[in-house]
C-alpha cells in the first residue's frame, strides 16, 4: 500500500532530503512496495527473541589514555564548502 503524501513529506523532512512536489506520490508508491517486503517479517514468531544489534559479543577494549589525534584543523576545514577564521560557515540561523 502506498505511503500517503503527508507521511512522505514528514519522512523526507526527518531525513533532510528535499523532495520535489511531483515526486511525492511516486516516492510514496515506491516506499509502499518496499514496506510490503518488510511486512514479510510479520510471518516470523519472535516471541521471547531478543533483538540482535551486532553479530559478536565482545567487550570494548581499553586503549592507552594517550593523545593520538594531532591538530589537523586546517586540513579538515579545507574540505568544507565554506569556512572562515577557523570556523565552518553556514547560512544565518539567528536573525
Amino acid at each position, binding site marked *: 500500500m502506498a*505511503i500517503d503524501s503527508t*507521511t*512522505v513529506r*514528514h*519522512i*523526507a*523532512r*526527518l*531525513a*533532510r*532530503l*528535499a*523532495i520535489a512536489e511531483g515526486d511525492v506520490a511516486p*516516492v510514496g508508491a*515506491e*516506499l509502499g*512496495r*518496499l*514496506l510490503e*517486503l*518488510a*511486512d*514479510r*517479517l*510479520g*510471518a*516470523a514468531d*519472535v516471541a521471547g*527473541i*531478543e*533483538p*540482535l*544489534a*551486532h*553479530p*559478536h559479543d*565482545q567487550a*570494548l*577494549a581499553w*586503549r592507552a589514555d594517550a593523545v593520538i589525534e594531532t591538530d*589537523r584543523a586546517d*586540513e*579538515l576545514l579545507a*574540505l*568544507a*564548502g*565554506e569556512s572562515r577564521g577557523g570556523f*565552518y560557515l*553556514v*547560512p544565518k*540561523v539567528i536573525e
Partner: protein
Amino acid sequence: MSISIAQQARALRARETSAVELARRALDAARAHAPLNAFITHADASALAAAERADAALARGAAAPLCGLPFVHKDIFCTNGIRTTCGSRMLESFVPPYDATVVERLAAANAVTIGKANMDEFAMGSSNENSHFGPVRNPWDTTRVPGGSSGGSAAAVAAGIVPFATGTDTGGSIRQPAAFCGITGLKPTYGRVSRWGMIAFASSLDCGGVLARSAEDCAQVLAAIAGHDPRDATSMQRPADDYVATLSTSLQGIRIGVAREYFGAGVEDGVGAAVREALAALEKRGAVLVDISLPHAELAIPAYYVIAPAEASSNLARYDGVRFGHRCTDPASLEDLYSRSRAEGFGAEVKRRILIGTYALSAGYYDAYYLRAQRVRRLIANDFTEAFRQVDLIAGPTAPTVAFKLGEKANDPLAMYAADVNTVAVNLAGLPAISIPAGFSEGMPVGLQLIAPAFAEARLLAAAHQFQQHTDWHLHVPGGAA
C-alpha cells in the same frame, strides 16, 4: 599477462620483471579496458612512486609477499591525497587527508595501488548500475552487469588488469560480483578487518575483504589486512590466523552442509546444476555432504532491507553540506543547505534507502520494523549456530542467476534486492564466506558460496584452495585461455 599473485611475486623475486614494470603494465591495461568503466580514478604518479619503493625493498631482499604487486582499492576506502568518491556525486571532489587502515596495511606491505575502482553509490546495489560515474561492464559479456557493489574491483581482476582488489561486503557486495565475474571473493568475519577509513553504509554489517583469482591469493591479501585495530571499536581483538600456512589442509572428512533453502525457486537451472557438480567434486576429494536446513532463510531479505537502510539513514546523516562533500549553491537557510545538498548529492537508490530507513526508525514504526527485524536477525544467526553443530561449512550458489543484462533490473528495486537472496544472511550473522568459480551457465561464470563459522577463515580458504587444486574453473578468463 601473468595474473595471479603467486605468478607475479615469483617473477618479481626472479628479477624477470620489476614493480615499476608491473605498475606500468597495469596502468596501461586499465586504460586499454576503459570501456569496462571499472575505474573512477587512476593514480599513476603515486603508483609509480610506490612501485619504486617496492623495487628498493625487493633489492634489499626485505620484501613482504605482496611487495610490488599492483592492485586497486574499491573507491570506498579513504586514500590520503587520492580522491575517494564512494561512487557518489556527494563525494565527487573529496580528497581524504588520511588513509584507511586497510590502505595503510597494504601500503606497509609495499603493494602498489594503481587506482580506485568504480562501485555502486555508497555500496548500495547489486549490479554497479547505481554509480554516479556510470555502470561497470562485465568482462565476460559487456552487455551484462559485473554485479555489485564491488563491480569495478571484480571487473578489474577478471579482465586481468590487476591480480587482486579490495572490496567491501555489506549484503554480498564482494561475493556476488566475484561470482558474476568468474573470480574468487572473500568476505571475512565481521570485525576481522578494520572498518576505520572505510566509508560507512551499515555499520553492523559492513566488512572489508578481497577479490582475486584464487583462494590462495585471497589468503595472501587477508593475511596483510586482517587483525585488530584500536581505531575501530568493532574490530576483533583475537589475533589473525596463518591463512597461507593452512591452505594445504585436506578436505578429507570435512562436513559440508547443503542448505536446501539456497536451491530455492529463484535459482536458475544452469546455476543449480553447476553448483551441484562442484559439490560432487568436493565429495570426490573426501568431503562429506550433509543435507541441512536454515529455516529462516527466506526472512533474510526482508530483515536485511530494514536493518541496512536503517543503519544507512543514520550513517549518511553526516553528509550535511557543511563539513565535506557536496554543498548546494545559495542556500536560503540552514535547513535548505542540508536538504538541498543531500537531494543533489545522493542518487536515487541511496535516497530510497535513506527514506525507508528513516521510516523504519521513526516514532510509531520502530518496534514493528526495526526491532522486529533485529529479532528476526537473531533467528537467522541461530539457524547458522544450529547448522554448525552438524557441519564444518555450508554450501550453495552465491547468486541465484548468472550476471544479468544491464538495465534488466535497474527500474525494479525488489527484483534487484532478490539477487542478494543467498548472501545477506551471512552478513546478518557476521560470518565469513567465499565465492569461488564453479562452472558456467549460458556462457557466464557461476559462483559456489562456502560459509564458515565466525573466525574460521582458515578452514574456508583451505577448502576453497583444495577445490581449486583439483578443478580449473578459476583459471578461465574472459575471451579465451588463461
